[in-house]
């Protein structure tokens, strides 16, 4: 390269790949059920764990799961974080709370937003319930549940939350 040639500092190479993702198997079952206002789980025949959303295999046992079961839209906070920084595409008043919620009847927590209470009032063991979008807006999507809010029930003592805390 001669002394007077400007080095090329950047090039632009536009790249685009398109995918057609079809929700298959249990994913499709879960989405079909949430369109009816229910949360579908699946129960492992070997270890008895109930997973939600429903999945086709047990990650612990490595076996196929056939049994489906609805789980409650009420649950218990097993852990949470308070978000104090804004992020793109999330139009929520700061601070807000994201929590792991162990739904009644399930054995793994479900990730969700908590609203209708102050961030400092959220605690492990707190009982919460799903707030659904109006029925006429329901589709085969997670967005049917707007968020969870305190249900007003008595807290679950932390020691009763076992392995989940």
């Amino acid at each position: 390269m001669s002394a007077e040639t400007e080095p090329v500092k950047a090039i632009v190479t536009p790249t685009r790949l398109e995918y057609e993702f079809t929700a298959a198997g249990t994913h499709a079952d879960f989405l079909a059920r949430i369109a009816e206002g229910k949360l579908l789980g699946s129960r492992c025949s070997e270890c008895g764990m109930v997973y939600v959303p429903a999945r086709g295999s047990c990650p612990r046992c490595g076996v196929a799961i056939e049994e489906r079961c609805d789980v409650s839209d009420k649950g218990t906070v097993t852990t949470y974080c308070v978000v104090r920084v804004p992020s793109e595409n999330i139009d929520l008043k700061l601070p807000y709370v994201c929590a792991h919620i162990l739904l009644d009847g399930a054995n793994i927590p479900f990730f969700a937003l908590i609203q209708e209470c102050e961030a400092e009032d959220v605690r492990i063991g707190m009982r919460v319930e799903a707030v659904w979008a109006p029925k006429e807006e329901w589709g085969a999507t997670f967005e049917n549940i707007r968020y969870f809010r305190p249900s007003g029930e008595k807290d679950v003592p932390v020691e009763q939350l076992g392995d989940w805390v």
Partner: protein
Amino acid sequence: MRNVGIISFAQSRYVRHEAKRSEVEMLLPVVTEAVQASGIPKREIGFTCSGSSDYIAGQAFAFVGAVDALGAWPPIAESHVEADGAWALYEAWVKIQCGQADSALAFAFGRASMGSIADTLRMQLDPYTLQPLGIDSVSMAALQARALLDSGKASERDMAEVAVRSRRDAKDNPDAQLKGDFEVDKILAEPTLVSPLRRHDCPPISDGAAAVVIASEEKIRELGVPAVWIRGIDDRIEPHQPGVRDLTLSPSTKLAAERAGGDVASLDVAELHAPFTSQELILREALGLGDGVRVNPSGGALASNPIMAAGLARIGEACRQIWSGRARRALAHATQGHCLQHNMVCLLEGE
């Protein structure tokens, strides 16, 4: 060196589009069948390695999701290669050579139907000089086929004959996807897809999964199962820039075969991972395969081409030939990259 053998192989029935099952649901029965057939209790498999590509799944960390098919509780020793499953088997073989495991599961999966696979494979090219050209994997293979034809070493008829033989042999393979009786002259009368390649010179788009279990000789003797011994295994890679290679030759395949201890004279079968008809012709020459060696009795990648699993499936199909008594010594080959850039040769022998 420890003697290491393959003790089981399973694969899915390859299909154009797996719509009803997720990747994990597609993988689970294949992994389960391979492990059960090995006779080793699942929790006693010493090491697990998978081969897949998140570009094909269109999801970051899709390969981590595959662990759900394994039952990784209590936690297992696991690894992943962003490569064909044949390289997952290679890593597992090294692990056993190092004495860190006595048995291992290698598996691979891909649902190429979810995107435009020819464009996805373009992402393997360097982003500065090659990707901006927009050349896809079929066009790359066509460049190679053109070079081969112009060299005078092969004709379009030779290519069509590979296609006809592959799809005919695939009729005996229940897992194969594209099979049937075709005629060379009719194929040659068809228009080209990407000149000089016709549709028949190209592989189908396939969704599927494959798995093998390997073990040390001590473990195999303890289990008392029939093994296919890995007598040699080696892989070699050529430069990335296709312009610096002679695309009509495959020196990396030739060298890998030599390093694997290649004695092609006594081979009964060769399972070559050649997604394009022209590539089989190049590989046969590189390996010096004579007429006495039956090539791709499974139908090869021209019958089913599960990207990421097609190379591992060649090893598994070669094992099936040995287990069924149709062969005693077999060569299995796997490739990845454009125009046979990276090649593995695995020499297999029955008891």
